[in-house]
């Protein structure tokens, strides 16, 4: 497939936003059960939610560039019964809304305690909002992944690993950002987020490697024989029916040379996994914001390459019809 930059930015930016929210809420959840110290509502949860929202809005803006007719985008919520894209279109604004609400409740201290149990644990409004929003964050990951995983003849995508990769890569980048953010505001949660960022990054490495391993061994179900229905061992296309380009030749071919395609795979494998893990480990030792920020920047840039590769690797069966001019 031809990777569209709008979709690359959409999926990576909202992944960071979702991951950052999950990180913030994980921190709050741990503090409720008194495992971690309570953070400041204003500077930590309020600003953290704002930061997550900035990434989500960025993703939403990027998605507009993907549409031929953005002024009709409101129509895309209609077919939620059948279309994963439509479901994503519904879940994304809902998630953004609750993230904003979560931040506002924290920032303006409109956070009444709803109930307590065992006299020790208090459940306040933000905890409930955050809990619902956590469900939405995972639902959004699931929708995004299923948009690609549900197309069965794009065999590189049609695997549960696609959904798992979206969850883990988004969460990893969100926790990396949370680590840098905690260092920036001087929170003691830096180590907590840093450790989780490393763990999730390693988990994402395993799952992404598994999908690369799987995709390297794919047996394609379609061939030129099934494409034109002629049972012969040797079929060669002599003409695709036109000499100039068409939508079919632009949309489904990534156009990169085999060499740069291969090298981009190694570039993202290095930038998304080992380099951020090394930088976060280093940064945690010193509690240094610049190193942690660099870790996130490298990982995010790597994820842009990863997403490019994800799209480019998918081999559309229609390409069988366009093998020669």
């Amino acid at each position, binding site marked *: *497939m031809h990777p569209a930059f709008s979709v690359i930015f959409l999926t990576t930016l909202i992944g960071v936003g979702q991951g950052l929210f999950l990180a913030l809420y994980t921190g709050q959840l741990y503090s409720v059960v008194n495992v971690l110290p309570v953070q400041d509502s204003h500077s930590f949860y309020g600003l953290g939610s704002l930061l997550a929202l900035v990434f989500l809005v960025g993703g939403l803006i990027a998605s507009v560039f*993907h*549409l*031929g*007719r*953005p002024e*009709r*985008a409101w*129509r*895309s*919520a*209609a*077919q939620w019964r*059948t*279309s*994963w*894209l*439509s479901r994503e*279109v519904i879940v994304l604004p809902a998630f953004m809304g609750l993230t904003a609400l979560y931040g506002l409740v924290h920032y303006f201290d409109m956070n009444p305690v709803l109930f307590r149990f065992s006299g020790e644990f208090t459940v306040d409004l933000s905890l409930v909002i955050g809990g619902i929003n956590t469900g939405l964050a995972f639902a959004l990951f699931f929708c995004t992944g299923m*948009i690609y995983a*549900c*197309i*069965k*003849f*794009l065999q590189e995508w049609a695997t549960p690993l696609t959904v798992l990769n979206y969850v883990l890569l988004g969460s990893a980048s969100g926790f990396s950002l949370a680590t840098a953010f905690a260092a920036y505001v001087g929170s003691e949660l830096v180590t907590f987020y840093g450790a989780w960022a490393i763990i999730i990054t390693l988990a994402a490495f395993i799952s992404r490697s598994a999908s690369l391993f799987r995709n390297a061994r794919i047996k394609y*179900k*379609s061939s*030129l024989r*099934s*494409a*034109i*229905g*002629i049972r*012969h061992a*040797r*079929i*060669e*296309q*002599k*003409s*695709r*029916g*036109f000499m*100039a*380009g*068409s*939508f*079919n030749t*632009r*949309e*489904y071919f990534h156009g990169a040379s085999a060499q740069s395609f291969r090298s981009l795979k190694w570039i993202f494998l290095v930038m998304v996994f080992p380099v951020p893990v090394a930088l976060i480990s280093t940064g945690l030792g010193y509690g240094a914001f610049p190193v942690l920020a660099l870790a996130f920047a490298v990982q995010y840039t790597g994820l842009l390459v990863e997403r490019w590769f994800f799209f480019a690797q998918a081999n*559309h*069966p*229609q*390409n069988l*019809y*366009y093998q020669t001019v």
Partner: protein
Amino acid sequence: MKQLALVIDLNVCVGCHACVTSCKEWNTSGPAGFMSDMNPYDADPTGTFFNRVQTFEIGVYPNTETVHFPKSCLHCEDPPCVPVCPTGASYKRKEDGIVLVDYDKCIGCKYCSWACPYGARELDENQKVMKKCTLCVDRIYDESLPESERKPACVLACPTSARLFGDVNEPDSVVSTAIRDNGGYQLMPEWGTNPANHYLPRRKTQITIHEDELIRVDNPLKKERQLPMPDADEQTLDDITSW
């Protein structure tokens, strides 16, 4: 349930592209808006087409066959492009099974084109909406046309009648008969899309003639040459038979 479709006879198609040009001409002049061409007279021209004819060579020289392969939307009975559409712009008509795009609802997200394994959909670069073969829906029901012309433009244009049009779910229609009699098949059956359009394979018409059939068995001389004239008083076959 009615399912209109094309049956394309690869045995007859000569690859003249008349269906391509006729399709483009009819549909670019239609009420649904023109099919854009970008840079038509410039370097790197491109345009929207519903139908293409491709050419494949089968076998190894000198034992090769050239197969011309017309390719358009197959109007699948279970179209994968329809459920993925987020707006409902892409739909399959219940009354005749034609898969259509509502150009006023399409947001141009291209998701349906990703979900079509045949590459039958094209984004119009000018209108920025997805377009595809309509099976000339604006023509086949037009009662101002004589009944013989209420067929898709490509079918009417084909000089060798390689394209048949009709209801594949009606057992005695011209298309169903052609599929049944000539081994009609679907493209990429492995994805369960159940395309309505069928293709008829290349086939050879042969009769077996044995050597003795080439020689006149009633030739008394067992030789292929003119028989000697019978004598004037001699009986001939004409005298003793009634033909």
